[in-house]
């Protein structure tokens, strides 16, 4: 009894200063199910990436003449470096998978509809930022795939005209683009991600967790937001454990030092649909990705169906399924084909 009262007093003392009771507000029981936890699990993945990224940043040399060698050094000379790098890479893949599932869940349940249109837009910006982080991470490997990704970066920048200025080597003639993309990977993009995440979480808090499409039965269990966070942390532990296991069982390698002027690799699975568009339309296929993101932003404006339940989602689900089918088909097309030169 004394112990319990000591804990109570300790909790009261901490709570008086940090106002932690604000995290004890009630959330619906379905919010603690896996589909509604995907966003929070993505956040847990980002925390893993941040931690491992900080460790890798101590040993990575963001210079075109040194980058490939520094990664080899991380793998062979830094204690646990190979595992830390493997966790960073595998966690990036897993986090993006969970994020995409989160987007699919939000889209399928129509959670972008009034009054959550702004938060959907913030979410789309978060998706774009995560893809940019994945892309810049690919370049930082500075192997053949890395340099080819960088050359595509420059070609896309040229397509954007004056808006692509920052992404071109001409922007800063005495600082290599690799170094500037490293800066973007470790500071600029994480800063943008943080600001967007704050806005995203703030809006979720203000609007509450979106309602289910089907009427819920009587819910005996009552949950608090703290329990929601606890479950997300649990899934975060699972993701970290999975990343460690994958980094040991399927260790991440490093390609030869890159050589410019040749295209013989294909990008990571995530960018295969864009690569497929490039196979069909050349570098102009980039506009296909731009149109995809414009469509995502426009979804709450275009979808005016307010009928309740899944009946009100039929047209939106049909459109979403069609877009998903095109994306998967493009990805499969690119995956099955030999690498194609788009730039040279």
């Amino acid at each position, binding site marked *: 009894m004394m112990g319990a009262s000591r804990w109570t007093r300790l909790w009261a003392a901490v709570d008086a200063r940090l106002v932690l009771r604000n995290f004890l507000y009630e959330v619906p029981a379905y919010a603690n199910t896996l589909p509604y936890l995907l966003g929070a699990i993505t956040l847990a993945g980002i925390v893993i990436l941040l931690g491992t990224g900080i460790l890798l940043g101590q040993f990575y040399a963001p210079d075109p003449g040194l980058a490939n060698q520094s990664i080899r050094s991380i793998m062979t000379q830094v204690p646990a470096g190979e595992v830390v790098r493997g966790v960073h890479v595998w966690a990036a893949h897993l986090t993006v998978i969970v994020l995409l599932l989160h987007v699919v869940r939000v889209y399928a349940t129509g959670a972008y509809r009034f009054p959550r249109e702004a938060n959907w837009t913030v979410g789309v910006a978060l998706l774009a930022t995560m893809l940019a982080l994945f892309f810049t991470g690919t370049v930082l490997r500075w192997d053949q795939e890395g340099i080819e990704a960088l050359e595509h970066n420059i070609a896309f920048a040229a397509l954007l005209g004056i808006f692509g200025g920052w992404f071109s080597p001409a922007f800063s003639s005495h600082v290599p683009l690799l170094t500037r993309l490293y800066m973007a990977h470790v500071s600029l993009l994480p800063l943008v991600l943080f600001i967007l995440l704050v806005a995203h979480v703030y809006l979720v808090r203000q609007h509450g967790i979106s309602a289910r499409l089907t009427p819920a039965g009587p819910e005996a269990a009552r949950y608090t937001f703290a329990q929601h966070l606890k479950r997300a942390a649990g899934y975060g532990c699972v993701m970290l454990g999975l990343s460690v296991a994958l980094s040991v069982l399927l260790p991440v390698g490093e390609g*030869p030092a890159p050589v410019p002027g040749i295209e013989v690799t294909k990008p990571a699975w995530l960018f295969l649909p864009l690569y497929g568009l490039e196979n069909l339309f050349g570098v102009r296929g980039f506009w296909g990705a731009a149109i995809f993101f414009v469509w995502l932003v426009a979804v709450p404006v275009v979808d005016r169906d307010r009928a309740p339940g899944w009946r009100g989602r039929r047209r939106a689900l049909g459109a979403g399924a069609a877009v998903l089918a095109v994306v998967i088909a493009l990805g499969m097309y690119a995956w099955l084909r030999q690498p194609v030169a788009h730039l040279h």
Partner: protein
Amino acid sequence: MLGVTLSASTGQPVSAPQDAFTLVRQALAALEVSPPNIDVAAERVIAAQFARNTRGVNIPRVREAQQALEDEDPAAAAAYLMEALRPSEAGPAGLDRTLLVPVVPRFVATPSAYGWLAAAALLMAAGGLIVRP
């Protein structure tokens, strides 16, 4: 067509490579992907033999690589091309040749690997306990 070529050492754009050293490296890159791109490699190997600047490249070895490619033996061709890049010569051949070999780690059953796997299992078990309602 947006032709973009970067210097691998400076990361800045350069004109299209004409030197044999870069062409041999491009051929090697084409052979190191899976499956090896023999057509691209053969094209670069032929161009390397006619390049004006052959500094840092052992051209007879490049010819042997071409023969290996004609025999559809990409592994032998890659070995010849590696030998063709003369080490410790002045100019672009100053590249560390160990960097031209990919690092392809595989799972090795060591105590350290099992330690990491045990840690991974513990993390997943702990996560499973936390997730349990």
